[in-house]
């Protein structure tokens, strides 16, 4: 195991034996889907704030340290900052204060704040799914939702397998990436050169080997699966059979209450 960049938790499962971990993966996947749509539909800041607080409570319940969440959130900070800087000055409305020719409006401030919470909610919500659901059960859920493709002669298992492999190899690729960066750094690659052009050029020696390793790995994996007689047809039986239990029912009700509740808050207290 190589040390560098191992600290990336994106797409990493954290086993903590909480209630949230035990919920049926189909329910979790389904609710993240609904949740994402809901987050995008919210028009006011209150519902977003409420959702964020509720989400933090679920993190607490899932025993996921907020530090792990912060590592994922950090990734979006630069994007948000750039978008905020543009929005805060460009949205017309009642002016709060002026700096030289730039006008900061109340609408701009609210919009920026909303964008911040919207993005945070999206990232933390989806991260919660991968934190609390092992890649294996996530595939089971995906397979379940992909069942309609059978009607067109497709195989849900093949789709689920492809997606799960992609998810599974994200951390591996990060580890690989870290190793290559370390190796090129040891050869004085100008990663922290003050010149942007040089810094960008320093990444070419990282990308080429990464592609090379990835394609090699894909080939090896295909061979390994082939030699174990993998076939993604619909005759496959399952080892883990998902059952919707009492816990899942309670979770479903709770989530429906939260969804309806926040939506109601949103439409009732628009912008005010």
């Amino acid at each position, binding site marked *: 195991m190589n040390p560098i960049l191992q600290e990336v938790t994106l797409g990493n499962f*954290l086993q903590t034996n909480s209630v949230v971990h035990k919920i049926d993966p189909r329910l979790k996947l389904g609710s993240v889907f609904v949740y994402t749509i809901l987050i995008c539909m919210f028009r006011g800041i209150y519902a977003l704030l409420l959702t964020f607080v509720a989400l933090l409570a679920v993190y607490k319940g899932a025993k996921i340290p907020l530090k792990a969440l912060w590592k994922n959130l950090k990734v979006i900070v630069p994007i948000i900052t750039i978008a905020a800087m543009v929005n805060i000055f460009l949205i017309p409305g009642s002016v709060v204060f002026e700096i030289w020719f730039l006008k900061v409006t109340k609408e701009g401030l609210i919009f920026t704040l909303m964008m911040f919470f919207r993005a945070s909610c999206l990232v933390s919500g989806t991260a919660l799914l991968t934190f609390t659901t092992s890649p294996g059960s996530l595939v089971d859920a995906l397979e379940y939702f992909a069942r309609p493709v059978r009607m067109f002669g497709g195989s849900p298992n093949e789709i689920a397998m492809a997606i799960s492999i992609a998810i599974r190899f994200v951390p591996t690729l990060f580890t690989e990436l870290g190793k290559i960066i*370390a*190796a090129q*750094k040891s*050869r004085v*690659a100008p990663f922290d050169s003050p010149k942007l052009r040089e810094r960008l050029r320093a990444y070419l*020696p990282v990308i080429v*080997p990464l592609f090379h390793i990835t394609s090699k790995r894909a080939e090896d994996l295909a061979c390994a699966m082939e030699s174990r007689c993998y076939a993604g047809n619909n005759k496959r039986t399952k080892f883990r059979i998902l059952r919707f239990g009492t816990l899942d029912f309670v979770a479903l009700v709770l989530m429906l209450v939260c969804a309806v509740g926040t939506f109601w808050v949103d439409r009732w207290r628009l912008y005010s």
Partner: protein
Amino acid sequence: MIVYENVTHIYNRGLPNQQIALDDVNLRFEDGEFVGIIGRTGSGKSTLVQHMNGLLKPTTGRILMDGKDVSIKGLGINFNVGIVLQNPEDQIFEQTVFKEIAFGPQNMKLDSGEIKRRVAMAMDFVGLPKDILETSPFDLSGGQKRRIAIASVIAMQPRVLVLDEPTSGLDSAGKKNILQRIYEHHKKEKTTVVLVSHNMEEVAQYVERVVVLEKAKVTMEGKVDEIFEKPNELRKIGLDIPRISVAFLKLKELGYDVKNVHTLKQAKTEFFRLKKTLQER
């Protein structure tokens, strides 16, 4: 001289999968030494050496090179230390072997004559034929790729050369060849060499001093002979002594008057000495 002072390194600190990779390590590498680092997989060997040029920064503690702290966060890579990481052929990216080996020296902003000289020197060092200079490194065999990767660090002429399992996956001729050349280089240029290895025969043959890592801690440290005098302690932590040492321990057990030996060369002289005394009797 490189000194590790109370170096601790923790991965994923504060998360459920937190892992202590180095636990209060105190070490000293003198100039011109050939040091071996042995230990089981996951004992922290790679983490230890990656602190040497500042690739990793310690969670607590510090690393001094000639009295200067190289472990300050934000400080770049210490180029006096050249590290060949595990499976270094994964770093290859250039279109030709020449460009690949020249990558390091080029980044050091050397002039083209000097770069050419250094590439030739490094190629010679690892025993690569000159006629592959313009071929693509991706077309070469695994062993040759490994040599190119090692050459690319050699070409930077570091004062301290660190090799993290440089021979894993090579055939036995290739193994011997590379280590022999590194040993000669060490003797000639008085370069400090740090060798991370699983192969006790290699360690016995080339290394002067051994550092034993176990579960993130330095558990033993000393001259090769001293370390291999304690086979039971080594076995307890999943390591072993060279096979020739085992054979000579057995001879001793059987009542023959032999010294403990750890390399084939020592074994040969000791064996002939034993033969002579037996014949005289």
